[in-house]
């Protein structure tokens, strides 16, 4: 048996075992004295697509930032068996990729920006393997034509794709995305979600996404976490997207239609 085959088999076994990838227990966080997260608990399995939905200011972004240690909350966050607070920033970065809501523009080229995703893995210098990884991700996200453009020359959507590419180049086991489809056109929205769904399934990466678009979330979600006023209101499969729950979270009446077996959420 070749190395590669053995690797694939163990990989497959691990996915079918549906291991716990992340465990969050009683996570609370306050900015100054304002409590933004109150006793949040959930777990994420390997290869699972989890969507966090909720109104503006409900704590979605804060929750994501607590998961990779950008912010330090009270309570526990475990990655696999390890407590996030015991891991160094670099150790976390080898496991968790993060796509912020807004990315800052600079004069780096697209290629070099994505190459930064290799930072947690490199020592004094990059190796051929790092370059190959970047090329692979560029191909995956169809960014070939932009490779040597500077970030200042990109549109908002292109910038978003580059940021996602950088996180993928990190080869994470867990991917955190803060409203990744915000700046994307319809085609790219679907394309990004399809690619994320594919890598989650094939490579067992857990993808945790904060999102506003309920319909897009319902199409790709294995699990949905509904946040309101710093608390989890509901958690479960797409079946929790009921008119009652949505009204509770957003204070908006909606009707849910079934279209070709998929729910379609419309304002009533």
């Amino acid at each position, binding site marked *: 048996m070749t190395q590669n085959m053995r690797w694939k088999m163990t990989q497959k076994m691990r996915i079918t075992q549906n291991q716990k990838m992340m465990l969050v227990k009683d996570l609370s966080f306050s900015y100054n004295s304002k409590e933004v997260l109150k006793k949040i608990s959930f777990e994420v399995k390997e290869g699972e697509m989890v969507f966090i939905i909720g109104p503006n200011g409900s704590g979605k972004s804060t929750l994501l930032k607590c998961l990779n240690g950008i912010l330090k909350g009270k309570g526990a966050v475990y990655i696999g068996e390890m407590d996030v607070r015991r891991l160094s920033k670099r150790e976390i*970065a080898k496991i968790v990729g993060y796509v*912020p809501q807004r990315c800052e523009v*600079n*004069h780096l080229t697209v290629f070099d*920006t994505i190459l930064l995703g290799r*930072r947690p893995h490199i020592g004094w210098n990059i190796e051929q393997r790092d370059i190959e990884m970047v090329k692979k991700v560029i191909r995956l996200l169809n960014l070939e034509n932009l490779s040597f453009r500077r970030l200042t020359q990109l549109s908002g959507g292109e910038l978003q794709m580059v940021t996602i590419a950088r996180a993928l180049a990190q080869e994470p086991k867990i991917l955190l995305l803060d409203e990744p489809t915000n700046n994307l056109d319809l085609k790219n929205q679907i394309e990004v979600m399809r690619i994320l769904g594919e890598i989650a399934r094939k490579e067992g990466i857990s993808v945790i996404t904060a999102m506003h678009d309920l319909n897009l979330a319902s199409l790709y979600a294995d699990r949905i976490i509904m946040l309101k006023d710093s608390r989890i209101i509901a958690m479960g499969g797409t079946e929790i997207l009921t008119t009652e729950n949505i009204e509770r979270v957003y204070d908006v009446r909606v009707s849910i239609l079934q279209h070709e077996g998929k729910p379609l959420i419309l304002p009533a």
Partner: protein
Amino acid sequence: MRMASTKITDYQEYIRSKHSFGILLFLILVIVSLASLCLGSYSLSLGEILSALTGNGDASSSLVVWNMRLPRIAAATIAGLSLAVAGAVMQCVLRNPLASPFTVGISHGAAFGAAFAIIELGAGELHRTGEGIIITNPYLIPLFAFFGALIGVFVILLLSKLRDLSPEAMILAGVAMASLFSAATMLMQYFAEDVKVAAVVFWTFGDIGRATWGEIRLMAIAVIPALAYFFYRRWDYNALLSGDETAISLGIDPQRIRLESMLLASFVTAICVSFLGIIGFIGLISPHIVRLVVGGDYRFLIPLSTLLGSLFLLSADTVGRVIIAPIVIPVGIVTAFMGAPVFIYLLIRGNGR
């Protein structure tokens, strides 16, 4: 699609183009060094210079080459690269395109520290006999220059922690710091003996000519570890360009890098200031010109800025030496004439990095 994928394989090509810019800069630096060696009020033929270099020259040509021109070239090269790399790093960690040791007041802090050591601790005197500054303690002045620079760094780091402080506001704070340090220096001068005042005034003109081989060695020893650190951090500086949250998610501790980088940048600045005086604008304009040519990638920005900084300072010093020879214009004055227009241009262009 085929064309597009060949584009990615062009990465080596893309790296090579940056390397060739570096080689070009290096060659120009060598040429300017040679020119600087040949030019001067004491005229020497190429043959005399060569024989002096190889140790076969007569006493006077050996003296000019080994004790006057070569130390100037070495000092200008080291100081130029130190100031330029300090500027490049500060522009990144303070997220401010206008940052440099000179513009945020660190140079003035260092000058204040040096003046304090000269006047209050009697570390040096200037006598009219033309011997230049007599240094009674070669380590005291750099040490206090570093303390002075640290005061400047502390204030700047505190200001940069405050949110929404615009780049312009930070530079204005730097101007305020600079005038505060200058006022404190003047206050000390007011009460000091005239030989010490002369020494301090002499200091405020940045001048390459005063460096001796011993001091050049000290400068080199100080700057080499700092350069190694800055170069090691080149990836982290790139990550910081994308914002602190992104940097953390890539495994980097922004606060720590900011602190270490600022301390080291002010250290190399302090060393240069304490031996050569205040030399402005090299640290500001060198990284900007490199950025215009090769982009904002710190992998190239750090080494190329050092080359360009050396090139600038050496050229400025050579111009200062020959333009109204035999009078030598201190290099600080030349760089100010060179750099101030560029600085104003950058301000007008806004925050464009």
